[in-house]
């Protein structure tokens, strides 16, 4: 158990509304990541963080922003949700080697 929680676990929203997903870790890991999982695509990196206020884009960052004001929290924001952002979102932290440990996921539906 890498001490990662995600909230909310499920969310249904409407197109055009802002949405923020939260990832919280309890073990002071420096690196944190946001992925989305879609059928036929595996997991794709949205954004990642290598420290407080230090973030960078991943493979599918368009339409998403992130913030990390504290080591333990990494927020993913959809400024104006679209139906193409319906997905399962996973947060991860980097362990002592190169492995990453994942949270339980947030299922987001945009109607």
């Amino acid at each position, binding site marked *: 158990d890498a001490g990662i929680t995600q909230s909310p676990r499920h969310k249904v929203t409407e197109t055009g509304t802002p949405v923020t997903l939260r990832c919280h870790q309890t073990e002071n890991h420096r690196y944190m990541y946001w992925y989305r999982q879609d059928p*036929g695509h595996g997991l794709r990196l949205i954004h990642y963080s290598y420290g407080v206020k230090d973030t960078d884009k991943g493979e599918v960052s368009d339409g998403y922003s992130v913030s990390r004001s504290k080591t333990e929290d990494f927020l993913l924001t959809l400024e104006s949700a679209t139906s193409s952002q319906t997905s399962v979102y*996973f947060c991860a932290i980097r*362990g002592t080697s*190169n492995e990453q440990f994942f949270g339980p996921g947030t299922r987001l539906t945009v109607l």
Partner: protein
Amino acid sequence: DQQVKQNSPSLSVQEGRISILNCDYTNSMFDYFLWYKKYPAEGPTFLISISSIKDKNEDGRFTVFLNKSAKHLSLHIVPSQPGDSAVYFCAASGGGRGGNKLTFGTGTQLKVEL
């Protein structure tokens, strides 16, 4: 451009037999490879990894083989158990800055039958 490919979307194996899951990659800068298992409605769980300086890593029933010349890795599960039924993802990292970002394959659904 899919840099990590799992060409078999599904695999069915009998309990007690060997399961072999395959993964190919195209980026020669990848230097670390991982396998994850995922059950429905849960996050992926790290299984086993291998560095590019090795060609084999073993952990209990799980062995990962790396063939760098062929840009191919495989996960062997022996013996397979019903609880191994899950989606398996291979992932790769390396090739510069970026906090060891992982590039994932699309997954293989393993079903272990009684």
